[in-house]
């Protein structure tokens, strides 16, 4: 069971790495939430919103890339996929900064879909990591 794996995880690098993936997951969930909130605004998303989201995405991409280097196998693969979606989020938000009206909204929505996909991939990495830790303790 994953909780037992968590409780019995060895201190040191492994524990730090696990924390890094879970922190990355929280950051990506938060990014998705922020884009979703901006997209749901009745008054419409503003350039200032998009600029802040683009910065946030940039920071999450940086963290994700750093985390991949510490992982192997399927966990690394899921994280690599997540980075691709995060980069696509970033690209869509950059497009939004140059757009207006419907084009702006569409780019933000595309960014939202990509952020959702990246959150899913990171969740898969977390599940993979927890399952591996659980198997080790059995």
């Amino acid at each position, binding site marked *: 069971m994953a*909780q037992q794996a*968590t409780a019995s995880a060895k201190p040191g690098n492994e524990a730090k790495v696990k924390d890094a993936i879970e922190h990355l997951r929280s950051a990506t969930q938060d990014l998705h939430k922020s884009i979703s909130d901006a997209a749901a605004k009745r008054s419409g998303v503003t350039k200032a919103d998009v600029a802040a989201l683009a910065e946030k995405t940039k920071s999450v991409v940086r963290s994700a890339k750093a985390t991949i280097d510490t992982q192997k196998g399927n966990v690394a693969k899921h994280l690599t996929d997540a980075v691709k979606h995060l980069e696509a989020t970033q690209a869509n938000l950059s497009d939004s900064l140059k757009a207006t009206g419907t084009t702006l909204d569409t780019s933000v929505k595309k960014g939202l879909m990509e952020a959702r996909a990246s*959150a899913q991939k990171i969740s898969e990495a977390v599940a993979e990591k*927890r*399952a591996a830790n659980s198997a080790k303790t059995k």
Partner: protein
Amino acid sequence: MRNYIAAVFDDSRKAYEALHQLWELDGSGDITVHGTGVVHRDELGLIQVDTKETHPVLGTAIGVGVGALLGALAGPVGAAGGAGIGAATGGTLGMIADLDRADTRQEAADETGFVLGVGQSAVIADVSEDWTTPIDSRIHKLGGKVYRRPRSDIRDDAWYSPAYPYGYYLYPYEYVPPPYAC
């Protein structure tokens, strides 16, 4: 194992309590939650999905996905109704007029009623779990009933269609709309 679950309750507040419990189990590492959503079936038999009302296109996808997934959770018998109920939900959200047909809604109500009855609410989730006890015990304690199917089974079903994007309408974090937030 990766599963789709539906935890069904008579009370919508209990569904939100269950949603919170699922994310709590995720936080403790007992399960991994990939996405969640909460749906209600009103007195007319229509499925309402709690969302942030983001985009018409996304809204329609949410409706179709939820309906198809409810059908999938009911097993192969519920599959046809699932597709129908998805269409009905799209209609409920007012996104596509063609889908808002009374006969489609009725068919959906008849065929998937055994998963989500009139007046009931459900939390739907995509989860990875090593065993079913953590979720089952929490949901039963809240008075709910759990429906569960492996994700791979659903994808292997002959009627499965990528047109019903299950994974794309579930929130990847705990989302509680204002009327239910404490």
